[in-house]
């Protein structure tokens, strides 16, 4: 028997998130797994049909803890201590990345971040995760009595399997005094569609040479009803705000069409867009890695390619 604690997250409507449903599929894929899901706050309606044995609600974690996660770490540590799961699975979200890592060190467990696979290996468990910015994959055996992992969104299918778990409350009685405090939240102004939700993404990289060309990319994105993305190099150079960054350390997008303009296609960038339906590359350098990842490509100067591309898109859309 492998006892698994799965730390659930919510979507914007407060229901169980897709990434959590995927994590349940991963957990149920292990031999003889017994899965408990834990969730902060009251259990949402979607919790009662999860394909798990039990749902545990953690009422002591509230929004005041968001971003600092001191209370969440303490409460989940207490739950882990009292139930001794062999594997604890988080989504690779902001919450999961911070709480998972802290929990691992607090409970002297192994930690593996951003896993794309979890499987049985002999009596134990092994995980696969991208390393070197996605250039390579590493398979690790867990050689510790407990493993804490975070699971990359999309690594497993969103399972439609359902169950009828019992729902219980867990109270550790722990109440952490906040060491740092959140004094405010500032939302970045955004025009048009959210990058993560866009069906079309037009992204620019170092090959654009400066900030001005992003206005051409914006025109194209607008014509397609999409959003503008960028490589880390372009963001770090200050050509465009970091909220547009696509990649391992930026946003993950999966549009129908991802148009990469002047982007070399470094692994860490591809990590954020490789699940797009079609990648289109426009780059002067025929040897550029992006052409190994793209479905369609033009070897050429974006300044000459984009105006006619944009004009034709507008005609087709008209």
């Amino acid at each position, binding site marked *: 028997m492998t006892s698994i604690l799965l730390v659930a997250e919510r979507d914007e409507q407060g229901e169980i998130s897709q990434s959590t449903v995927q994590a349940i599929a991963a957990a149920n894929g292990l031999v003889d797994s017994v899965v408990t899901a834990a969730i902060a706050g009251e259990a949402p309606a979607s919790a009662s049909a999860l394909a798990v044995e039990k749902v545990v609600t953690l009422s002591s974690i509230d929004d005041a803890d968001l971003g600092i996660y001191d209370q969440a770490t303490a409460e989940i540590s207490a739950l882990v201590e009292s139930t001794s799961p062999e594997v604890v699975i988080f989504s690779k979200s902001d919450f999961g990345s911070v709480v998972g890592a802290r929990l691992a060190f607090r409970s002297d467990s192994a930690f*593996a971040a951003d896993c794309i696979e979890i499987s049985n290996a002999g009596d134990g468990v092994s995980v696969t995760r991208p390393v*070197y910015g996605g250039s390579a994959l590493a*398979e690790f*055996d867990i050689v510790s009595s407990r493993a804490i992992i975070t699971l990359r969104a999309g690594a497993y299918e969103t399972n439609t399997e359902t169950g009828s778990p019992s729902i219980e409350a867990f109270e550790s009685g722990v109440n952490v005094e906040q060491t740092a405090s*959140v004094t405010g939240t*500032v939302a970045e102004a955004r025009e048009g569609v959210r990058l993560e939700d866009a069906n079309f993404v037009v992204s620019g990289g170092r090959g654009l040479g400066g900030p001005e060309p992003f206005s051409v990319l914006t025109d194209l994105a607008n014509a397609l009803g999409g959003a503008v993305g960028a490589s880390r190099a372009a963001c770090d150079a200050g050509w465009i705000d970091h909220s547009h960054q696509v990649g391992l350390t930026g946003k993950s997008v999966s549009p129908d069409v991802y148009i990469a303009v002047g982007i070399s296609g470094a692994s860490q960038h591809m990590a954020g867009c490789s699940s797009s339906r079609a990648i289109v590359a426009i780059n002067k350098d025929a040897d550029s890695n992006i052409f190994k990842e793209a*479905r369609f*490509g033009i070897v050429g100067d974006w300044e000459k390619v984009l105006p006619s591309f944009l004009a034709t898109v507008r005609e087709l859309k008209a």
Partner: protein
Amino acid sequence: MRRLLGIGITELTVRIVVLAKQVPDPETPPSQFKIDESTNTVIPPNGVPPVVNGFDLNAVEAALLLRDAGADVEITVLSVGSDFVMDAMKKPLAMGADRLVLVDDSGLGNIDSAATVKVLAAAIEKDGPYDLILGGRQASDWDQAHVTLGLAEVLGLPLVSLVQKLELDGDSVSLQRVIPDGYQTITAPVPSVLTITNELGESRYPNLRGIMQASRKKPEVFSLADLGLSSDDLAPKLELRKLYIPESNKQVELIEGEDEADSGKKLALRLREEKLI
């Protein structure tokens, strides 16, 4: 008590340690990125020396920005590993950091991150105390993004991750923490552990004077024994079984028109044909 009051260092000096890791240059062209599958290690590419992890340079930059803002800071760069390449490791000094402390031991070549945290904590206990401990948001080799977080746990210090801006404010620090659609403003006490993200902005290039000064500085080196640790303390929790480059079987369809403008037009028509637009 403060460990060392060197030249120009007073009780008011804010002591900052920046964690830094030597990594293979992430700008290595993919064609030169190769793995020796018999040893599960990356084959160092010819003529591409290792570098300091770029995210750690963001943390160095964050410390330097505090100095630029007028704070009296002493910046110590701390690294754990083996086979250090000094030209790479001295870059933070050339940028303006004051000291370089290395835990350099052949036993540290292939340890996992749980062991790394143990060594860092021991080094900090020996070399500290510090007012702020800064690390990059993740390392560009193993991308685990948790050594600095784990260190906060082990040292029992407050932690704020993904900091894009920081200001010293008496006995506390005012921070901006990046979230998916904006940022949080956070006040944290001193001492604290912070991870710095690349949203902070590009790290400065060393100038000639900085490079000259760095070349004259010698790293302070600890061995494992100096820290009271032995290889028995560094037992792994994760064992690397296989490291490999995934195969890509994608085949690009190159669109070629009479000229580049024609290619652009043909591309749009091709995407329509595929019902993608």
